[in-house]
């Protein structure tokens, strides 16, 4: 059923979320908030070296510490065969996942886990960690992506031969794979170009920055049953990977989803759970593990640092005729950076005849990269949207007009083989052009920048149930962890279909034993895919209710209508019966077939791609290089905003993460390849006084493949900010910056050099 053109009573309103009370009173239970009787504290020993061979690990002294009940190393984990797994943002190898959680023969980054201890008190666990005697053979390390690709660079994996190269190389390399996407003939295109811009851009690794450190509580029962209490972006993912890494049946593992304290992609894979289960199995006691903020920075995956070359050619009239990009992404210790989406997203916004994109997935001695909100797209768009602004300058065309002239439309074929359908980029550009922020004059001395962003958004597998309780109230349950208010949007869709008020619907997140498989929360997919499942489940309930009303009135089911939460006889000849509401039907459920429930599982197809445009005004203190964000507006095609407040929240949150990525966030390493800023003091996330209000403008071009027209919204907003701010700085100072973060020392050095 499709509700796009009907007048909606609940969808589009702004109700208070059902789980809100617990969160504002401190009662919500997050990953570290539970305890169990007889619980032990688990702690991990992490490598101080960026690259070293493990010669030996002697745990005898550690095991002798009073209070220590178990010590584990890689020996306690089965050797996993090399097998592809789909992890959050890209393919990753189960053997690598296991080795990333517990190093086997080599430690590949500072912070790499190589042993773990469980003890009765945290102090005893710390003392035991200090007594684990590890003999290392320290090896030369490499972190920067270009250095890692150079000949003679220290090689991380002797068995890594670059994939995607013909003939297959004979020498091991840090380049895991090469990807290419071509359309038309780039060289011919550049030959016709009147104006060409080129540039080399680099970005530093940045962390998702969720405030809740990873944590879990695991219990291995004598009968082999395992229960895990943990927050994540996918508790089914925890179950699947823990089972795989420990050789257990998934049916023997039950994962209870704790409230999650932010993820942004960083919690689409696991670090602690298999270790906690192994410690629990060895000690016979529940084991609680909790990363410190330092552990999170040293031991969990940020996104790639990258270096990129870009070349764009256009005719005098502004038509882009050719575009070329070479992207080099850090994958961290194991293969699997977001190089695929990185290559695909940059030019996906434009209708360009000749495109040539070459991408490298490069390992180096830092934590394995994990997904971070539209993985790869923010990095590649920083280069594309900056180069386009320079192109507009050279052409003497307004930068927004240049986008409008080349914008992708429905039917535009992308360079990676997909043809755009049901997209709203033109509408976003039109609203942007008319927006007061764009049309108002720039304050003297300030600079204004604009940049665009794209993300595919995905669908995928989701399960949802809708139960009508005996009193007619409704309980919905899905398998999707709720990070940003999805319980509210799920409840709203159910209420709309059933024709009742949203306060009559309570939505919960069901554990792995209480609902069908549901892929993780990520790829901006929950409102689209899980929303589709919960809507269909509600529709099945309506059909069932109509059948029960027909049975009650003893008339054919075709003669029953469902409106505003009640069954009505369809037309006078069907009989003058009093309408039956949910409570009435639920009361007699026993007589009309038993409990009123429906469960639907889908593999949702047709996720609508998202487009965004960000406008940013900055003031630059040229003497110190400090950049102040004076005004920020983010416009985005959201298909249909189910709960507008939480759609705006995704856009505002993504924009501010982008502001941090643009101006102040980076990993800083010392001479020994160790992280120098593993904490929120010197890893500088934006604070409340760093940013103005972020005006989020919702453009609604419905996605016909979703019952309410929704499309993913969570990832697009982090793509435009870096280039929007870079372009604003350029228009304020004339400086054409190409390296992130655009921190005060770099801006001051650039203005000194330009002077």
């Amino acid at each position, binding site marked *: 059923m499709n509700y796009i053109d009907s007048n909606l009573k609940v969808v589009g309103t*702004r109700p*208070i*979320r059902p789980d*809100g*009370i617990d*969160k*504002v*009173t*401190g*009662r*919500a*239970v*997050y990953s*570290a*908030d539970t*305890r169990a009787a007889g619980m032990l504290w688990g702690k991990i020993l992490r490598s101080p070296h960026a690259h070293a061979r493990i010669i030996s690990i002697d745990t005898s002294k550690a095991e002798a510490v009073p209070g220590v009940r178990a010590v584990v190393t890689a020996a306690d984990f089965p050797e996993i065969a090399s097998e592809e797994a789909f992890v959050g943002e890209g393919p990753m190898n189960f053997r690598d996942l296991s080795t990333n959680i517990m190093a086997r023969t080599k430690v590949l980054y500072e912070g790499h886990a190589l042993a773990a201890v469980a003890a009765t008190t945290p*102090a005893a666990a710390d003392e035991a960690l200090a007594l684990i005697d590890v003999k290392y053979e320290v090896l030369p390390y490499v972190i920067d992506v270009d250095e890692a690709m150079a000949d003679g660079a220290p090689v991380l994996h002797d068995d890594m031969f670059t994939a995607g190269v013909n003939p297959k190389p004979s020498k091991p390399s840090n380049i895991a794979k090469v990807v290419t996407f071509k359309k038309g003939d780039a060289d011919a295109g550049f030959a016709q170009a009147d104006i060409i811009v080129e540039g080399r851009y680099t970005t530093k690794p940045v962390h*998702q*920055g*969720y*405030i*809740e*450190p990873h944590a879990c509580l695991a219990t291995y029962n004598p009968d082999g049953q395992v229960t895990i209490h943990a927050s994540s972006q996918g508790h089914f993912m925890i179950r699947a990977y823990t089972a795989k890494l420990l050789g257990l049946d998934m049916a023997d593992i039950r994962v209870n989803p704790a*409230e*999650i*304290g*932010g*993820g*942004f992609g960083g919690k689409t894979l696991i670090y602690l759970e298999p270790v906690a289960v192994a410690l629990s199995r060895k000690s016979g006691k529940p084991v609680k593990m*909790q990363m*410190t*903020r330092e552990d999170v920075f040293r031991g969990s995956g940020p996104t790639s640092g990258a270096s990129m070359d870009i070349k764009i050619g256009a005719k005098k009239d502004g038509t882009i005729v050719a575009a070329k990009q070479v992207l080099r992404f850090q994958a961290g210790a194991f293969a699997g950076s977001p190089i695929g989406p990185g290559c695909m997203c940059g030019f996906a916004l434009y209708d360009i005849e000749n495109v040539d994109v070459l991408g490298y997935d490069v390992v180096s001695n830092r934590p394995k990269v994990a997904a971070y909100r539209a993985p790869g797209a923010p990095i590649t768009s920083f280069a594309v949207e900056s180069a386009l602004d320079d192109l507009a300058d050279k052409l003497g065309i307004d930068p927004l007009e240049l986008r409008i002239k080349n914008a992708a439309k429905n039917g535009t074929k992308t360079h990676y083989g997909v043809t755009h359908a049901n997209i709203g980029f033109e509408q976003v550009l039109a609203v942007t052009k008319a927006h007061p922020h764009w049309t108002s004059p720039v304050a003297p001395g300030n600079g204004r920048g604009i940049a665009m962003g794209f993300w595919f958004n995905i669908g995928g597998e989701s399960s949802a149930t809708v139960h009508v309780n005996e009193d007619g109230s409704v309980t919905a349950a899905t398998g999707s962890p709720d*990070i*940003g*208010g999805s319980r509210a949007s799920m409840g709203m869709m159910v209420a709309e279909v059933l024709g009742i008020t949203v306060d009559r619907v309570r939505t919960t997140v069901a554990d792995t034993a209480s609902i069908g498989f549901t892929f993780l929360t990520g790829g901006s997919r929950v409102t689209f895919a899980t929303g589709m499942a919960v809507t269909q489940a509600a529709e099945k309930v309506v059909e069932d209710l109509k059948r029960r009303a027909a049975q009650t009135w003893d008339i054919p089911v075709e003669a029953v209508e469902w409106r505003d939460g009640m069954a009505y006889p369809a037309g006078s000849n069907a009989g003058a019966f009093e309408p039956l509401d949910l409570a009435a039907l639920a009361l007699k459920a026993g007589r009309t077939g038993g409990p009123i429930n429906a469960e639907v599982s889908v593999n949702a197809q047709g996720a609508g791609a998202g487009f965004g445009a960000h406008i940013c005004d900055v003031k630059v203190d040229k003497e110190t290089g400090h950049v102040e964000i004076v005004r920020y507006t983010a416009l985005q095609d959201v298909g249909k905003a189910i*709960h507008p*407040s*939480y759609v*705006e*929240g*995704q856009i*505002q*949150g*993504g*924009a*501010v*993460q982008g502001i941090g990525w643009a101006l102040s966030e980076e990993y800083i390493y010392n001479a020994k390849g160790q992280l120098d800023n593993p*904490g*929120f*003091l010197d890893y500088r*996330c934006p*604070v*409340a*006084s*760093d*940013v103005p*209000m*972020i005006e*989020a403008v919702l453009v609604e071009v419905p996605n016909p493949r979703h019952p309410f027209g929704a499309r993913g919204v969570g990832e697009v907003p982090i793509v435009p900010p870096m280039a929007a701010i870079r372009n604003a700085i350029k228009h304020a100072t004339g400086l054409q910056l190409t390296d992130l973060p655009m921190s005060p020392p770099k801006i001051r050095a650039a203005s000194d050099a330009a002077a």
Partner: protein
Amino acid sequence: MARQHVTATINGEETDFLCETQQTLLDTLRDVVGLTGSKEGCASGDCGACSIIMDGRLVCSCLVLGVEAEGSTITTIEGIADGEKLHPIQQKFLEHAALQCGFCTPGLIVATKALLDENPNPTETETRYWLAGNLCRCTGYDKIIRAVMDAAAVMRGETV
């Protein structure tokens, strides 16, 4: 390990507990007293998720030793509401959708209470600088600032 006996008034109730000398007030509140509303985001005073009000001052409970709480008066997130009746700050955070994951919310609500106790009519800038010690990664702060200023207006009796 000598554990010290501490008596403090927590959320209006006389509370006795034992804590080890090196145990922070945050760990004591969570693991001994059982109030898990205050959260550990960094344990170094840089994120504010563990904010409480101690003897009238907004502080990070991860930068206070449990033993220092002897004889003090402490308000945690669990003490902001009046029984089941939400404080205007909590109500406005919900109405403005000023939280997404909610992990920083307890610290922000306590910090907002301390702000409005001291400055009933803060400007946007004053609010942003006062709350600079409370990191939020989901919301981009916009709706939080609007919720705080709306709550301030309610407490001044100007709106409902």
